[in-house]
Every structure is written in structure tokens, then in C-alpha cells.
């Protein structure tokens, strides 16, 4: 709102000056215009007080303004289709069309990051359990169970279900338990697993949402660009496809991930089907995929565990291909489990929109 109070103050001063000159023939011109203007402003203010709540309650509206300088009410809408509803509401209030303008404008959004609170939840945002931070990889429906997928090591105990409770972004910001761990297959010994170690083919677990928490399947947060360090969410990727079949990705395939620590990062597949020992553990993950950025950019950091891995197919449409779980100490290489192996271990699910 622009200087309404200042405008009224000027009008009051003008009226006082006229009253003090009551015996003086009232001059024509400026004083009359002031009186008329004052009346118009008051009418506009009264109309604005009624119109603002009525208009902003309508879908597709962005802002309501009393532009004192132009002597008009101005209403911002997201798209032209919202104009009809606005005009109808204003007509009901008896506000003439000459008193207002309707403009199409960009919606105003909070500058939220991957580490902020998101409802409904989407892929790529921060989750918290115990004393740890991970990333919500992607939302998925397992039969009738609305869920999200993250890493097995992003549970209280890696391997086996112990009902880990998740918060988003942290329990301090929102103490609501958004989901509970319901699937995290045990690790096996023998067979393809090196002696003395325990193995799986994916570092994946599934958590079932609480009924009161909303989630959007098929959406991954996107930031302004890959490998630029930004965590501010500027839009969303749409999962239009999921690769349920590939284990060996072609060397050089460009893949992306979105995670709470390094944001949107991108690299090329450098190794496929790698049996990988997890540092400081007796765990080996079998047949994993390695990704590095050719320019040596940092593509992973602590907290990115559980990130979605995807290929961009066109525009903001993506194909989900895997689940990130680790990286090298300098963050220039990340490792992911192919989606096929995730589904083989925790069961079929639908992650597309």
C-alpha cells in the first residue's frame, strides 16, 4: 500500500486551511480539486477494505493494492482466467470497473530451500531421524501405502526394520512424525558377498507416511541449475518415467541428483556394476554405479544420502534411475544403486506422477 496515511494528512491540512478562510470567497480550482480528491481517496480506501479480503480469497489471485498515486485499486492475478472471478466479486461489492485495474503477474513465493519445511513433501528435501540428516529421495506408492524411499543407512539400524521415525525438516522445526520405516531388508552373507562382509544390492529403505502428512508423488525439487551450490528451490522436476530394468548404464550417461547438502548436481557415469565396500563398515554393496562430473565439480556431500538419481528426458520431465548413497571424501564422485535393484529388494512401487 502506498503512503495512504500521508495522503490523508495532506487532505486534513488542506481542509483546515479552507476552514480558516471561511470568510474568504472560496477560490475555485485547487481547493475544489482537493476536496473532490479527498472524497475519492476515502471512497477508494473504503472499497479497498472490502475488496482486498474478498479478492484474495479467490484462487489465482496474487496481490491487492490501493495505488493512491493513480487513484485506483490494483489486483494482481496469476493468469487471465482468474479475472472473471475478480470482476464478479468487485461488482457484488458495488465497485465500478473504472475504480480498479487487474494485472497478470508472477506469483509471490517464499524463498525456500531444500532444508526448509515442505508440505506436501517432494523429492530432494531434508529429512531428520535420531541425530542424523538425510535426503528424502522420492515419493512412491507401494500398493496402497503412500511412502518415500531413502537409504537403508538412513534408518536407526542399517538392515532390518525398527520403526525409525522421520521428521521434515527437523523435529525442532516440526515435531510431526511424517513417516515411519516399514521396509529395510537384511544384509546377507556368503554367495556373491566377500568373506567376512555382509551385502545387499541396494542401500534402500521405505517409510510409510502418516495419514495427516501430505506428499506429492512424481515431484522432485529443482534449483536454479546443476553444480552451482544453490539450495533454493525454484521449481520442480516431474518424474514421468522410472527405469525398472537397467543395471548397467552406458558409460558417459549424464545423470542428476537433488539432495539437501549439495542441491542439484550432475555428472557422467564412469563405472557400472561396481562391487563397493562402504568405508568404516563391513558392508559391501554389489553392482553399484559411479558418477563423476567431468570438470571435477563437487557432486555429493554428507546429508545427500537418499537422493534421487534421474535422467532429464525433456524440459523438467525426468526418468528416475536410482538412489544415491555415498561418495568419495572430496565429494567429486557419487555412487548410486540402480532403481531396478532397489525395487528387486524392497518390492515394486510407482514413483511417477
Amino acid at each position, binding site marked *: 500500500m502506498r503512503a495512504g496515511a500521508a495522503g490523508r494528512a495532506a487532505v486534513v491540512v488542506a481542509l483546515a486551511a479552507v476552514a480558516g478562510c471561511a470568510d474568504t470567497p472560496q477560490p475555485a480550482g485547487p481547493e475544489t480539486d482537493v476536496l473532490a480528491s479527498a472524497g475519492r481517496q476515502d471512497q477508494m480506501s473504503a472499497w479497498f477494505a472490502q475488496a482486498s479480503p474478498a479478492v484474495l480469497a479467490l484462487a489465482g489471485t496474487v496481490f491487492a493494492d490501493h495505488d493512491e498515486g493513480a487513484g485506483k485499486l490494483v489486483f494482481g492475478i496469476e493468469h487471465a482466467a482468474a479475472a472473471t472471478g475478480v470482476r464478479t466479486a468487485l461488482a457484488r461489492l458495488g465497485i465500478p470497473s473504472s475504480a480498479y485495474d487487474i494485472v497478470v503477474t508472477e506469483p509471490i513465493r517464499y524463498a525456500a530451500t531444500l532444508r526448509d519445511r515442505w508440505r506436501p513433501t517432494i523429492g530432494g528435501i531434508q529429512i531428520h531421524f535420531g*541425530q542424523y540428516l538425510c535426503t528424502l529421495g522420492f515419493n512412491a506408492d507401494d500398493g496402497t501405502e503412500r511412502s518415500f524411499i531413502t537409504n537403508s*543407512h538412513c534408518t536407526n539400524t542399517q538392515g532390518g526394520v525398527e520403526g525409525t521415525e522421520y521428521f521434515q525438516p527437523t523435529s525442532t522445526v516440526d515435531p510431526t512424525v511424517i513417516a515411519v520405516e516399514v521396509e529395510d531388508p537384511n544384509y546377507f552373507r556368503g554367495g556373491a558377498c566377500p568373506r567376512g562382509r555382509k551385502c545387499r544390492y541396494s542401500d534402500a529403505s521405505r517409510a510409510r507416511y502418516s495419514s495427516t502428512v501430505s506428499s506429492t508423488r512424481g515431484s522432485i525439487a529443482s534449483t536454479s541449475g546443476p553444480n552451482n551450490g544453490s539450495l533454493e528451490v525454484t521449481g520442480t522436476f516431474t518424474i514421468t518415467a522410472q527405469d525398472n530394468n537397467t543395471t548397467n548404464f552406458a558409460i558417459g550417461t549424464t545423470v542428476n541428483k537433488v539432495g539437501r547438502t549439495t542441491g542439484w548436481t550432475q555428472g557422467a557415469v564412469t563405472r557400472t556394476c561396481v562391487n563397493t565396500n562402504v568405508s568404516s563398515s563391513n558392508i559391501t554393496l554389489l553392482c553399484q554405479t559411479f558418477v563423476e562430473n567431468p570438470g571435477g565439480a563437487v557432486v555429493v556431500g554428507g*546429508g545427500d544420502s537418499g*537422493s534421487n538419481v534421474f535422467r532429464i528426458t525433456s524440459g523438467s520431465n525426468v526418468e528416475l534411475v536410482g538412489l544415491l548413497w555415498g561418495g568419495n571424501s572430496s565429494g567429486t564422485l557419487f555412487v548410486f544403486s540402480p532403481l531396478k535393484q532397489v525395487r528387486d529388494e524392497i518390492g515394486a512401487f510407482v514413483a511417477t506422477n
Partner: protein
Amino acid sequence: MQRVGDSIELRLEIAQPARTGARVVFRLVAHNLSSRTLELHLAGREPTFDVVVSRSDGSMVWRRLEGEVLPAIAHVRLLAPGDSVATLITWNRRDARGRAVGPGGYFARGFLLVDGPPLVSPEVPFEIPSS
């Protein structure tokens, strides 16, 4: 709580090997210098430290985490004023290819991995004795 910035110091201490065949023990200490509790987001389920040993010409001899794949989880650790996170790392005096490293002067630097650029210690010189 205060976010980590210049409030935390990473120190590397080296127990100088007594003889040529002895292992080298590094002690890394991350110390809260401030008067406030710091919230650290440490990479890994446990604090993850790295050590790099270099020659005087700067060429790397050994890196503790070379070739390691770490789980990309972050651990939230509160560090009270004056409190520390510490670890001991033992080096068997072998380089990345498993070859014994000869006597002479070397330099070591320590790192504490966090959910951003790592905390880095000052470089510390040490000697591997010839006999």
C-alpha cells in the same frame, strides 16, 4: 547455538616415530573456541577425519581416505564451549600403492569432513628417522 565458522579450530598433533619402522600416529582435535554451543553437521554416522601426508615438494604420499566410498549421511553433533571431537589415526608408513615410505622430512594436514567444505588443520612437519 552458533553455526561453525571461525569458532572451531582443527588441530593436528603428530607423535614423532621413534625409529624408522615405527608407525606414525596422528591425533586430530576439533575444538570449540567460542563461548557458545556449536551445531556441527559432520559427514558420516561418526566424525570422519582425513589426513594427507606430502613431501616437501607438495607431492602427495598418502591419504587416509584415498579411494574410500563414504555413506553420504550427516550427523548432527552439538559441541559445547571448550568441548572437542578427537580421533587417533595410525599410518603404517605405506604410500597409496603399498610401498614403504623412506626416511626424511614430510608434512601432514588434517581434515574433518562436514556438510560443506571440510575443516582443515594447519600443515605440520614431521620426520621419519633413518635409523
